[in-house]
């Protein structure tokens, strides 16, 4: 009964989406307030029905209802409750339902918080949002129905892929989807503006909070995915330039560019056409990401099933939306009133430079990700484009960007003073130089790039602080006054500083992990000691344990640092009988920002076991930096001027609209 209820709710959501996709847009053309008003009600209704449908699916998983095909294929009665819950989206069908749920959630949020949007814009935005919803509702119902039943219900399920039986799965996909799908709102705003043929600074003020919200979640989602890969895959890497990772990085880069260009549009009424294009691109890249991950063209942990029908369906959605949006853009954009031009040396100019580098870097990732697929489709030749390609293209483009980052916030609008800003950054440069000198002295030999990379990170960090120090007058006025001023600073200024500092923190982590980390692979017998970087690992022996749905062979290591006992690490190998699968569970020990990482290889008949041991200094900074960036996003979002749905000028207009 419950699965049928969920299925039915989804069909009803599709029906509402069809109404929302047509009636308000038609109403906006006719300027009929009654028809336009339909959008808000249907958006909220659509969300309620999709939520009901999703809740029904969750209920099937929690009750281990194996008469439902996806539950049978991805769940097991012995699994802990939390994994039963998370396995709802640990498969193709369920994760697509989550995608649609978040899409409907954003639509409902625009309906609820967007009361002060001009009625036509609101109707068009919700209409466009619903076009996407119709496409993906149909996709689920026609090709990926999660509620399909099996005639003879099996007694036991096939279990969830053991790699996904992890708390990371509880958080990573919803976060990532909030980011990916969040860009659907900015996309809808862009299309609505093109349909209406009108775009102004107020449009940018409405779009920016949504972009910021999506960006913040996407940042956290990517970081979460990276950490998950780091500790579950058991080989210590945190970013592999895997197409699946690139699929999430591309919308992030485009979204970051969008945030910055929307700022120029809001403040200076320039870069209009470009901002609209970026809004379209950010969501297009999200769609391409969904296609890459969900269609089965790539084989990875994310490709749950490869039904060619699904790939073709998503490809059709992709072509329709990206092609349609770009065609509409080509047709309508020249009709938009151009914004003003500005001096190249100015904050606008700095933000354009930022956009230039971000978009170009995004393009190189795009080429590296799609070139192998295109080549295989055209010539049949199979290649792999890996880390060397991206290190040779992405990094050289990102370094000048990072040098330019601290200049942006210090530059004045309209007409900046490059030399003056450079002088104000002298302090930051001095800190960077000290950092370079110290690193060089400590390192002695080693790659010459390392001290400079450290210098760059310190310069970024100090540069982010410079803006705050100047605006509070920290070094010039009494501390009490500075503190009072700090409280008075707009939250968005803090947001900028945090986001830029987060970049520096991540960079520090990357340098530390790649340059100063150590790795050892060895075979050890009980009683033997392995050493790495002044840490000694005494192998005590192996034990067998029984988990809820697996057997575990755990190795016990006593860890000492410079002779002092600091703890015990127990990496293990798990066997999941329901799938006949083995996984390695790495053991991690955190020491400040560094981590010790231990994972097991194969046991040999003579009682010895192969182990892989890493010392990873500063590694936690990689993800901490992303958290700091996301905090910047949240701070900026909490700025009074930007709060969703509170732009002042709209209020007067909204009051004139007839009651809905």
């Amino acid at each position, binding site marked *: 009964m419950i699965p049928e209820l969920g299925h039915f709710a989804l069909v009803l959501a599709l029906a509402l989406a069809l109404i929302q996709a047509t009636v308000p847009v038609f109403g906006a053309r006719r300027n009929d307030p009654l028809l336009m008003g339909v959008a808000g009600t249907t958006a909220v209704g659509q969300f309620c029905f999709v939520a009901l449908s999703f809740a029904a699916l969750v209920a099937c998983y929690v009750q281990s209802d194996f008469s439902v095909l996806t539950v049978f294929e991805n769940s097991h009665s012995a699994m802990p409750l939390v994994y039963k819950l998370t396995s709802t989206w640990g498969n193709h069908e369920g994760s697509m339902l989550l995608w649609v749920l978040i899409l409907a959630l954003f639509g409902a949020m625009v309906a609820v918080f967007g009361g002060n949007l001009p009625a036509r814009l609101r109707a068009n935005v919700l209409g466009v949002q619903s076009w996407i919803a119709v496409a993906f509702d149909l996709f689920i119902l026609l090709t990926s129905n999660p509620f399909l039943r099996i005639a003879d219900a099996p007694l036991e399920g096939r279990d969830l*892929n*053991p*790699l996904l039986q992890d708390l990371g799965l509880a958080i990573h996909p919803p976060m990532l989807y909030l980011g990916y799908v969040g860009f659907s709102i900015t996309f809808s705003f862009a299309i609505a503006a093109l349909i209406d043929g009108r775009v102004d600074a107020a449009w940018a003020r409405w779009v920016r909070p949504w972009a910021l919200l999506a960006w913040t979640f996407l940042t956290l989602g990517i970081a979460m995915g990276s950490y998950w890969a780091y500790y579950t*895959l*058991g*080989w210590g890497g945190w970013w592999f330039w895997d197409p699946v990772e690139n699929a999430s990085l591309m919308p992030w880069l485009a979204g970051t560019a969008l945030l910055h260009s929307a700022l120029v549009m809001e403040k200076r009424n320039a870069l209009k056409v470009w901002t609209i294009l970026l809004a379209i691109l950010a969501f297009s890249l999200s769609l391409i990401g969904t296609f890459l991950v969900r269609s*089965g063209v790539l*084989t*990875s*942990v994310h*490709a*749950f*099933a*490869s039904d060619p029908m699904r790939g073709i369906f998503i490809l059709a959605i992709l072509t329709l939306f990206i092609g349609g949006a770009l065609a509409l853009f080509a047709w309508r954009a020249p009709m938009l009133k151009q914004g003003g*031009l*500005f*001096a*190249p040396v100015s904050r606008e100019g700095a933000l*354009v*430079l930022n956009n*230039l*580098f971000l978009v*170009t*870097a995004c*393009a*190189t990732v795009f*080429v*590296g990700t799609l*070139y*192998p697929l295109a080549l295989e489709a055209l010539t049949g*030749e*199979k*290649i*792999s*484009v*890996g880390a*060397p*390609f991206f290190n*040779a*293209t992405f990094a*050289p*483009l990102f370094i000048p960007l990072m040098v330019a980052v601290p200049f942006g916030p210090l530059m004045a609008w309209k007409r900046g003073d490059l030399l003056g800003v450079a002088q104000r950054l002298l302090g930051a440069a001095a800190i960077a130089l000290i950092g370079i000198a110290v690193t060089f002295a400590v390192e002695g030999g080693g790659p010459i790039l390392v001290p400079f990379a450290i210098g760059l990170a310190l310069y970024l960090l100090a540069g982010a602080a410079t803006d705050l120090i100047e605006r509070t007058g920290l070094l010039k006025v009494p501390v009490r006054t500075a503190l009072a001023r700090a409280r008075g600073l707009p939250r968005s200024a803090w947001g900028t500083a945090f986001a830029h500092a987060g970049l520096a923190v991540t960079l520090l982590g990357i340098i530390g992990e790649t340059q100063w980390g150590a790795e050892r*692979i*060895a*075979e050890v017998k009980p009683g033997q000691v392995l050493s790495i970087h002044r840490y000694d690992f005494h192998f005590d022996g192996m034990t067998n344990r029984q988990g809820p749905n697996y057997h575990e062979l755990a190795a016990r290591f006593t860890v000492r640092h410079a002779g002092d006992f600091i703890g015990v690490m127990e990496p293990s*190998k798990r066997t999941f009988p329901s*799938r*006949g*699968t*083995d*996984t*390695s569970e790495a053991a991690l020990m955190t020491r400040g920002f560094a981590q010790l990482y231990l994972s097991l*290889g*194969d046991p*040999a008949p003579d009682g010895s076991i*192969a182990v*892989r041991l890493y010392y990873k200094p500063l590694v936690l900074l990689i993800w901490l930096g992303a958290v700091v960036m996301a905090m910047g996003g949240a701070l900026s979002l909490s700025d009074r001027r930007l709060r969703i749905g509170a732009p002042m000028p709209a209020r007067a207009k909204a009051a004139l609209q007839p009651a809905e």
Partner: protein
Amino acid sequence: MTRRRRRLVLIGSALGVLAVAVALVLSALKDSIVFFNSPTDVVEKHVPPGSRIRLGGLVKPGSVVRGSDLAVRFDVTDGENTIPVAYQGLLPDLFREGQGVVTEGVVEPSGAFKADSVLAKHDENYMPKEVADALKRSGHWKEEYGQKVGSAPQGRTQ
């Protein structure tokens, strides 16, 4: 600055960055991509020694020999040709005889293959897509291989 000159500066710098990016991409594509080959490809195409490739196929049953210090030797076959592979390090959890495998490394002058990374999938039925295609081409494909092509996550050791 006139409107015209401002526009020129903007367009000029955009083209400049783009040109640099194109140059970087082209040079990286020339140097840092790796081609996938089946054992038959290696034999027929005469892949020159020293070039870096991915070699994929089945681990030949009975061919795995473990040496000291985590050294391991095995044969990769596609049914027609067989290439001996040497590797040192940890093997992925699902590296097994008779199963599909993808290795990355360098062809040596002797015709042997020295791998520095081995990829296998965390699933007993798994067959990497490249390997499946290569086996189909050489006519050594068996239907039971096909059950789970591309359905499982990827592990790797380096």
